[in-house]
């Protein structure tokens, strides 16, 4: 893998291994995510994409290997990824509270995110900030939008997104693509997983495949080559 200067890398995962009972899910997965880039990870269900993102965020500890985010080692210098927004495995919320109230509670824990910012981010993902409807009555797509809103709320410099357009209709997917592209334009780096090759094609600077616990550049007719061409 091409080595980048460390100041240009926001996420560096090296030789991550993880097993559950006897099932070794990750067998030395490595990745380097440059600043202001969108990288995608594809792979079969159960291939370990979500586990990898969880390890990168600090929500899960690897059996071996290291993760550095903005040059801070996770699990060593810090327990959780700094300046990072996450949407992994779909976010859950307090069903009896409104979207805004849920975000207010989370903002109180992080100590970031004013009422104005909460309104702004809810509007950004296409939710009505004034809506008092409890989250329990939300559709899958609305919950996904809210999950994305909580990831964006504190204006992080790195986003770890696990299937961010899951459950969204075509128009909703387009909106999210626009948001993510704008974020990249404003300097945010994004590592996302997806089952949609079209999504990867639209959003990602580089695509990896999680195959048998290892991340390797994804080159398939029409996808990897196309991306390579675009980069050149």
């Amino acid at each position, binding site marked *: 893998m091409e080595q980048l200067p460390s100041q240009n890398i926001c996420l560096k995962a090296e030789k991550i291994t993880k097993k559950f009972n006897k099932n070794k899910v990750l067998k030395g997965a490595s990745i380097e995510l440059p600043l202001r880039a969108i990288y995608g990870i594809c792979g079969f269900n159960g291939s370990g994409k979500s586990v990898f993102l969880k390890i990168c*965020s600090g929500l*899960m500890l690897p059996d071996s290997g290291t993760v550095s985010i903005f040059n801070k080692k996770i699990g060593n210098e810090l*327990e*959780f990824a700094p300046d990072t927004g996450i949407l992994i495995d779909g976010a*859950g*919320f307090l069903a*009896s509270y409104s979207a805004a109230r849920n975000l207010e*509670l989370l903002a109180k*824990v992080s*100590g970031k995110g004013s009422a104005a910012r909460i309104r702004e981010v809810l509007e950004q993902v296409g939710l009505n900030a004034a809506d008092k409807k409890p989250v329990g009555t939300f559709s899958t797509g609305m919950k996904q939008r809210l999950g994305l809103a909580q990831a964006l709320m504190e204006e992080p410099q790195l986003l770890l997104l696990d299937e961010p357009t899951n459950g969204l209709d075509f128009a909703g997917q387009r909106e999210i693509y626009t948001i993510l592209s704008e974020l990249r334009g404003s300097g945010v780096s994004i590592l996302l997983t997806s089952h949609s090759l079209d999504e990867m094609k639209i959003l990602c600077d580089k695509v990896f495949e999680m195959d048998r616990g290892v991340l390797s550049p994804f080159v398939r007719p029409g996808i990897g080559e196309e991306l390579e061409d675009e980069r050149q």
Partner: protein
Amino acid sequence: MKFKAFLEIELKQLLLRWRWLGFIPIFAFLSYRMSNFVLNSSLARGLTIGVAGQAAVPFNAWDALFPTYNNAWYTVFVLVNFFLICVCDSLPESKFGSIAVFRLRSRKGWWLAKTLSILILATLYTLAGFLVILLAVSPRLGFSWQWSVFALEADSILVPFAFQKVSTPLSAALTLFGMNVLGLWVFGVLMQLVTLLTRRYLFGYGVVMFTLISSFILSHLLVNVSPFLKILPAIHNFNMNFWPYLYRDLPMRWSYLYWIVWLFILLPLTFRLMKKASF
């Protein structure tokens, strides 16, 4: 500030659940049943309000409270069981809890919040139980800050007569309150520990109920043993007075010490597991 906000979320998650509504019929039934018990026992003994020459009131609300909380059957199958059912899924962490922990940025803080939330809920639950029983039975039995004749005569093994010489009903109730809060906290933490190990909260609940029921059986086996051994069954340390612990000759502080020993074992274990926990 961050920790306080996280603890607030934790408590909201544990409190905002329909199953707590079970508290109302359960404690209404207990209050009704216990006030009947006191009234019927008192009437059978000729204790009625206004009997000439009686220094104390014939019966009062405390006479219903102590039999409720000193009854091993109620303790195991109703009081502790209901509490465990209400909080058994505090672990594994919910999805919302996970994104909150990510913002808290500390597994140590997460452990502390999980542990404290069980203590706070145990305190609220016991306090609410005491208040509801006292308030519900007071219209029928009356209320007084002194021991009643019913309690002083102590023909019921469920009334804490051992304390009557030295204390008021309030101080005996506070002692009982402390034992229950500590006991519920210990079992809540034990349930969390098993859940952390198995990642299935029903296992945590099952193990704690098994421990309680086993201790209930053990308590009856340990009748003619030394006072020191009698303290071993957990159920003894929820209660002040019940057969075969009726003539307890160990001071009450031993029961407090008993729970503290449990906590000294359980809290470091849960801390170690939570430091390595995955979300």
